């Protein structure tokens, strides 16, 4: 019944198809986190984000996070899709979709999954600004 759907892709992320992966007749709640590209950082205008990943290790770490979430909450489907390559402003860089019978499990798990992803998954983000400069952005330690 339970299943983890992990994908690192350079294709644009499609919310509806990702949510379909976690749908079940036994599901009462589906919770999404969508990470999108903001247009500014410290007064500089962001033109685009560029993501890079150590793909096989990122997939491995994402699966570990799914196991971790399942050990804490009663979940049915988990889908984590992360985009790599150029991601323009307003587009989604990551979509997490979690389903459960009761909403508390998905709500908590989804929040935890994005926090933990930012702590453990080997993916990097380069912000390219309209002034031509760029910066490898660190998640807070």
């Amino acid at each position, binding site marked *: 019944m339970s299943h983890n759907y992990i994908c690192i892709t350079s294709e644009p992320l499609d919310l509806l198809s990702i949510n379909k992966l976690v749908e079940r007749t036994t599901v009462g709640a589906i919770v999404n986190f969508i*990470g999108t590209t903001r247009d500014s950082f410290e007064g500089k205008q962001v033109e685009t984000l560029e*993501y*890079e*990943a*150590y793909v*096989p*290790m*990122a997939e*491995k770490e994402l699966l570990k996070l799914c196991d971790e979430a399942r050990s804490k909450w009663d979940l049915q489907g988990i889908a984590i899709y*992360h985009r790599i390559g150029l991601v323009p402003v307003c587009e989604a*860089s*990551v979509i997490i979709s979690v389903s459960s019978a009761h909403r508390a499990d998905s709500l908590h798990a989804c929040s935890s999954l*994005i926090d933990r*992803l*930012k*702590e*453990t*998954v*080997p*993916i*990097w*983000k*380069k912000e390219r600004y309209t002034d031509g400069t760029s910066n*490898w*952005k*660190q*998640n807070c*330690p």
Partner: protein
Amino acid sequence: QHRPATMAPRVEVKVLYFASARECADAKEEVVAVEGSDGAPPTTAQLEQVLLERHPKLRAIFASTVFAVNMNYVDKGEAATLREGDEVAVIPPIGGG
């Protein structure tokens, strides 16, 4: 005296560079030979010295990078033993999500 091949004091590992490390090394990956000291097998501590010598620009970022050996993080300050053919990634501060 017989020494098992996997514990030889000199090994070749595949080093992967990502993000700012890739820019500093001007390479995505390379094969690097590393020797252990005092007959002990080489570790990530020796590899660090080899990489910093090979690519001096890495010095600017190495304080905040960690290694992963065969896709297992090595804690900063620890030294993981390296074996022939290991895949070692140079991991700058992550920024996913």
